[in-house]
């Protein structure tokens, strides 16, 4: 069996039952891995009782690797987690890099399915065939950095391999609805609040150490392809940009096209912008590079602030999204404070996009008198007040004062704050939009609106393809020149980017950043050579399509309908200056075309025959016969 470890671990925290089930090869070929495995298994688990609280024992949690995870080549260290989201109430998933996925496969498992809930703090210990549910009382309350170090130290023993930890911090324990789960401190399953699912299950961490090796279906072909790709990587400007500046390199690209939201999406230009650009990052807080398993791109940053109010120890540095949410969104030009906010989010275990966006939302509420210093315990939450931003991050992590209201995310906070605060929201389906403005790239707007988990730039390849960083000429819908500020043809583009993107990023395990220079042929070839399956581009896109419908169907089961496939008023407000001046996505046109292409009915539910045609009769029955 090439690529796969060969079994999936099922752990029930209520009964304590643990079982390793062999991976079925027909299933593996059809669902590829990662999100494909996760969504199908999750659907099978909940189909008897699809109505439950995301923070109850009834919400299963799936963690799945792809066939490429753990291979020794650039940009394939990715893996996914999924469950019903406590933030949105819908299907939630995250795509993560780091080292945990590879280590899990070395231990012999392609994934873990966690059901039930423990009654006291617990962690899962995996060392090859030895799998145990253990007492985590000692670790409960620790931040993600501390629990990572302590757990590795506690389990070092005689082994030369230190193992990997995937853990929640205090935010997950406190059920912050955008709590994250972190591997090795800086590799984070951030979006949709799945850390709170663990908190509710009293699951603090998973420790894994594996000593096995992975097989490759056709090792000579795989080696030849790696040699071909090495030439592609050497000197490539996108890769060199990532190596030199990490994801922060997008600051200087995105500002040209108006991609970067500012002042809670009200501006696309700002005099102090360069203060938090990649050059300043390098000069003020950068201490080095970090990477994921076997990846030579090394786009992750390490940062430190040695003294002052925003002092933090050397550790994972802020990514582009974090710089934008705590920086441009809040008109905060203190890079040190952005690094500090990132450090607090990482340690508490919180999604920086939702956290920063929620604080920007709160700043606008403060500006408009909807909340005052009385509500904020004296914090002067004005635009650019870096001290107040950092203090508010901590209050959210602790759920202290107004931090408790904001810990539910901006959509839930707006319900409590009232007034015209909903006008300041930047959410789709209660998930805060990432830092890419659809007014400059209309296809992003459709991608945000129809994404099953809410506004998302990772659910498909629309962002890299429409943004121009990725070129897939083998896919006809993506071969022509793409004009950002146009809505024509963007429904077709979205469908193709979803079908191929689900295969590429979410099932196979390619990284959207480090692997963006591959074309479709190279990507499919790599999966062919590793698995030994004779996949074609058509077959992997068909798999991606099937998985897209499962995701959509899951969110439909959890309540998504057509009225939720909309952009918030704030993102649909025309800018009167800047690079996107006068541009607005034609959502009516794009949604109409998208619904036709996807076979969605007027309510936004896939037509029964579409699902049946993809072999998803059980999902159709759940949606139509229940």
């Amino acid at each position: 069996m090439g690529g796969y470890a060969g079994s999936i671990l099922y752990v029930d925290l209520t009964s304590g039952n643990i079982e390793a089930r062999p991976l079925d090869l027909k299933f593996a070929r059809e669902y590829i891995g990662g999100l494909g495995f996760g969504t199908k298994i999750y659907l099978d688990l909940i189909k008897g009782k699809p109505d439950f609280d995301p923070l109850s024992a009834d919400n299963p949690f799936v963690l799945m690797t792809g066939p490429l995870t753990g291979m020794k080549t650039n940009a394939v260290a990715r893996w996914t987690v999924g469950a019903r989201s406590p933030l949105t109430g819908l299907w939630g998933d995250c795509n993560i890099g780091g080292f945990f996925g590879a280590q899990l496969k070395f231990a012999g498992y392609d994934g873990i399915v966690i059901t039930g809930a423990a009654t006291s703090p617990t962690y899962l210990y995996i060392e090859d065939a030895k799998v145990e549910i253990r007492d985590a009382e000692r670790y409960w309350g620790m931040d993600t950095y501390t629990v990572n170090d302590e757990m590795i130290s506690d389990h070092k023993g005689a082994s030369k391999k230190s193992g990997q930890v995937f853990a929640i911090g205090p935010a997950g324990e406190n059920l912050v609805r955008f709590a994250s789960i972190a591997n090795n401190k800086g590799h984070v399953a951030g979006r949709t609040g799945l850390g709170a699912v663990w908190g509710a299950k009293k699951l603090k961490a998973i420790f894994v150490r594996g000593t096995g090796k992975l097989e490759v279906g056709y090792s000579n072909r795989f080696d030849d392809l790696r040699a071909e790709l090495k030439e592609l990587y050497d000197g490539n400007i996108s890769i060199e940009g990532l190596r030199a500046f990490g994801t922060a390199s997008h600051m200087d690209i995105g500002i040209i096209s108006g991609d970067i939201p500012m002042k809670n999406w009200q501006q696309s230009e700002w005099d102090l912008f360069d203060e938090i650009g990649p050059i300043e990052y390098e000069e003020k807080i950068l201490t080095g590079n970090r990477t994921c398993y076997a990846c030579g791109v090394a786009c992750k940053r390490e940062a430190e602030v040695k003294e002052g109010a925003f002092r933090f120890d050397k550790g994972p540095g802020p990514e582009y999204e974090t710089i934008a949410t705590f920086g441009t969104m809040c008109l905060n030009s203190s890079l040190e404070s952005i690094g500090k906010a990132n450090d607090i989010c990482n340690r508490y275990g919180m999604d920086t996009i939702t956290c920063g966006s929620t604080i920007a939302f709160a700043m606008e509420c403060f500006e408009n008198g909807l909340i005052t210093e009385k509500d904020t315990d004296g914090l002067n939450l004005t635009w650019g007040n870096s001290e107040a931003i950092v203090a508010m991050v901590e209050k959210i992590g602790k759920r202290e004062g107004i931090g408790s209201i904001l810990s539910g995310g901006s959509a839930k906070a707006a319900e409590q704050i009232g007034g015209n605060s909903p006008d300041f929201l930047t959410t789709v389906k209660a998930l805060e939009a990432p830092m890419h403005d659809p007014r400059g790239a209309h296809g992003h707007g459709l991608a945000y609106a129809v994404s099953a988990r809410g506004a998302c730039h990772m659910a498909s390849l629309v962002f890299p393809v429409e943004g121009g960083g990725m070129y897939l000429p083998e896919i006809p819908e993506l071969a022509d020149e793409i004009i950002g500020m146009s809505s024509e043809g963007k429904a077709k583009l979205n469908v193709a980017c979803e079908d191929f993107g689900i295969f590429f990023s979410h099932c196979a395990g390619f990284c959207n950043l480090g692997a963006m220079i591959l074309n479709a042929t190279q990507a499919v070839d790599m999966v062919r050579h590793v698995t030994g399956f004779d996949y074609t581009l058509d077959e992997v896109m068909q798999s991606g399509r099937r998985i897209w419908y499962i995701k959509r169907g899951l969110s439909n089961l959890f309540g998504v309908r057509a009225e939720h496939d909309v952009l918030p008023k704030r993102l649909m407000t025309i800018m009167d200056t800047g690079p996107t001046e006068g541009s607005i996505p034609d959502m009516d046109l794009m949604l109409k075309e998208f619904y036709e292409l996807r076979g969605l009915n007027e309510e936004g539910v896939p037509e029964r025959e579409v699902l049946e045609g993809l072999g998803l009769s059980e999902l159709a029955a759940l949606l139509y016969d229940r």
Partner: protein
Amino acid sequence: MGLFESSEKFEEVLAGFFRRVGETPEVAQKLLASKLVIRFSYTDPDVVIVVDCSGDEIDVRTGDTETKAQVNMSMSADIAHKFWFGKVNLMAALTRKQMVAKGPIPKILKLLPAIKPTYAMYPKYLDENGYGEYNIH
């Protein structure tokens, strides 16, 4: 055929613009700090321009194929023209090889913030110098 009818015309327009940029202190200071010598090789029509930032002031030389440049940028004249309006998707142009950049990539990327103000300068420069017919409105 591209937008510019001859090499002479394109060279006149673009070299003139680069000289204008070189005389703009807020941009020139940052370019001079890079110490880079950049060769732009254009096609359709064919033009070579060297922007030399290695001295005390920016030196713009046309037709210079001899000086050793640390950075070599190649693209069509039309792409270059659109670029200076801020109307080229830079990532797409690089990915699709409509623009090719060779040299120390981190140093090239560091120039991006420096040239940001020039996007607003280019249409104004065209109008002020009798090249209004090339303006994109």
